[in-house]
């Protein structure tokens, strides 16, 4: 059986997060339900992904040559899309404050550099970051739900989420239960995402939910596509590639599949959901290649920090160096830019 995604039946009316809370009842996909059988029927009816063709298209996208003004624009855009991340056991409040300072003003010698989108850390450090970022446009994102493995009870995961929200997190990066997904218990994965979404709060104070698929553990592009749709059906605001703890993480083909999913979600429902590429993107060149994919696969509307993010730590430094190169005509050493 094939369930193709039909052409959009609805006009593009409400695309903002504000309207997102009312979407569940009148949803065109409401009939699928949350049962294993219903989800399985839907997810396994999605069109397949041909690996050779997908990777070929990614390789072609990577040949785009972004120069001059368009490169400068891309570098600034990429900076504004970064979730500046530290997820180490050895993280300290001091390191977090240092990261927040760089997040607000990435390159103090060039005040026109935009701030990054968010800082991303473990829940216990959210309070420190919220304090350090007060009054700035930079959001606080917290990984939760027994990150990175997701191996705990739902109760613990919800408590983890609640802690982060209580401490002031604006965004929650949850991990899906890959064990459940791989064994076909789609209902359990769906239910967990729905529950974590509820734990994110309600109304205008609701924390944005990013759902980490950990694509490197899913075993193929067809599974990635199914995981994308499962997360979108369960209410993910953003689908995210990886925890950064597993390789491969964000690759161009995987991100392309995810961009196709949000594009098709929009065609179907009129809503725009986001994508976050996290892990493994360290060079400005890679980031620009991803922006090309966003531009040509999802569409120019997704070139917006609300709809596309990079989860990265060392990427920012390279973007800043490339930015200075564009302006001054020569490369500077990494140590000429402050690094948190």
């Amino acid at each position: 059986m094939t369930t193709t995604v039909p052409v959009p039946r609805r006009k593009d009316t409400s695309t903002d997060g504000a309207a997102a809370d009312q979407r569940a009842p009148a949803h065109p996909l409401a009939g699928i339900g949350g049962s294993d059988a219903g989800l399985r029927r839907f997810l396994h009816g999605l069109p397949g992904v041909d690996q050779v063709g997908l990777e070929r298209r990614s390789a072609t996208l990577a040949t785009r040559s972004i120069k001059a003004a368009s490169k400068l624009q891309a570098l600034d855009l990429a900076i504004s899309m970064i979730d500046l991340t530290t997820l180490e056991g050895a993280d300290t409040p001091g390191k977090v404050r240092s990261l927040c300072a760089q997040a607000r003003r990435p390159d103090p010698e060039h005040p026109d550099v935009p701030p990054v989108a968010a800082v991303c850390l473990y829940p216990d450090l959210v309070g420190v970051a919220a304090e350090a970022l007060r009054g700035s446009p930079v959001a606080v994102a917290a990984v939760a739900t027994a990150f990175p493995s997701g191996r705990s009870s739902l109760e613990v995961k919800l408590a983890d989420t609640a802690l982060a929200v209580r401490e002031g997190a604006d965004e929650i990066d949850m991990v899906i239960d890959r064990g459940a997904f791989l064994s076909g218990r789609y209902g359990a994965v769906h239910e967990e995402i729905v529950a974590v979404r509820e734990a994110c709060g309600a109304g205008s104070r609701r924390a944005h939910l990013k759902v980490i698929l950990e694509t490197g553990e899913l075993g193929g592009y067809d599974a990635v596509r199914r995981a994308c749709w499962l997360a979108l059906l369960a209410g993910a605001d953003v689908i995210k590639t990886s925890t950064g703890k597993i390789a491969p993480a964000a690759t161009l083909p995987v991100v392309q599949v995810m961009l196709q999913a949000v594009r098709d979600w929009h065609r179907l429902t009129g809503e725009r959901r986001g994508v976050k590429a996290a892990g493994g993107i360290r060079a400005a060149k890679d980031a620009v290649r991803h922006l090309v994919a966003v531009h040509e696969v999802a569409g120019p509307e997704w070139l917006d920090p609300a709809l596309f993010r990079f989860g990265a730590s060392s990427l920012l430094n390279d973007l800043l160096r490339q930015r200075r190169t564009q302006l001054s005509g020569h490369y500077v050493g990494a140590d000429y830019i402050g690094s948190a």
Partner: protein
Amino acid sequence: MGTWSYAPAPESAALADLRPGYRPFIDGEFVDGNGAPLKTVNPATEETLAEVSTADASDVDRAVAAARRAYEQVWGPMPGAERAKYLFRIARIVAERARELAVLETLDNGKPIRESRDVDVPAAAAHLFHHAGWADKLGYAGFGPQPRPLGVVGAVIPWNFPLLMAAWKIAPALACGNTVVLKPAETTPLTALVLAGIAAEAGLPPGVLNVLPGAGDVGATLVGHADLDKVAFTGSTEVGKQIQARLAGTGRRLTLELGGKAASIVYDDAPLDQAVDGVTDGIFFNQGQVCCAGSRLLVQESIAEEFAELLRRRITTLRVGDPLDKNTDVGAINSRAQLDRILDLAAAGDAEGAQRWTSPCSLPERGLFFPPTVFSQVEQTMRVAREEIFGPVLAVLTFRTPDEAVSKANNTPYGLSAGVWTDKGSKALWTAQRLRAGVVWVNTFNRFDPTAPFGGYRESGFGREGGLAGLAAYLDG
């Protein structure tokens, strides 16, 4: 953020090392031809690139005589291992001068630099390397212990892949011990002449390869020459038929690689996004000026509407413009004559009631360009579904059952290539077995490899290029 547009990223035209004049290559030397000189133009600007001295009948005689001499005295008797050395050397120089050749090809032909850089030149080098490897192993290719070359080959090639088609003819012919007189297309003679220079640089003995630029009359004189042993032609079906009639009864061998009107069949269980990409590549690669282009899309009715939407969306991302810009996907149409033919057939599509959709891309103000175009509501009887347009124009038809798909795909006098898109292996094989086409691609399109035979049947010609079957075309087995 405002819109993000890609700044121009042009490859340097100076890399082509363009010279003001080019001359025929006969018996190991560049010499003045006795034909009327022609000017070759850059189709992206319609400016003259260079003046090319052309051959006349006396030059054809000289070239064929030089090739005969080289065949009998040097190249024919030479051990395969020795021939291989020259071919490997030529292949290496082509690879080393890849950028120069790519830029020159783009200037002369109008194709995007991305394609000449990533497809044409690497594929030409690969073909030369592949056949160089066969030169000393022909006894093990399955044509008997000592297969013999045919002799002197007259080769006439088209303008759509000037260097690649030259390599497709020269590499197997020379590897098998034949000598060659090559006539490149009137509008794109430059890379074949540079290739001749590369052969000279590699020390290829005089007469083994001769290149005679000129118009169709030079080609006609060449293929009719009584001292050839074989003619290899790639080009239009019309000219192919004339050549076949001319050679009938002469005993000379002939292979023809002619036109096509390939169908891409997209089943409802296809990997849709990749099918969209593949169909797009299939028709817009090289501006659709490809004999095996997937110029007919047959899409299953249940997904037709959605597929059309995704396809239009994808085509809208194609960047049409300066062929030297590294971000250009669709370049210039090779000649005014070809552009006129495309315009004429597209107008016929309108007149016959097909629905035209044109990509909303911007076109350069000058030069020979045609925007990516899709005709829907096309019927089998319409000209856009039957005639080879050889341009960036896709005709979309629908089908309900696999049987209908196959019968519509086969309802053409051509038989060069076809594409099948499905995630179901058994269905792909079922369909491929029933398609009357020399090449059937499954879940991909326009993929070429020197190990894979390429060629058609019915009005698409006969004989194969590449693989073992390609060797057979140049051996007396």
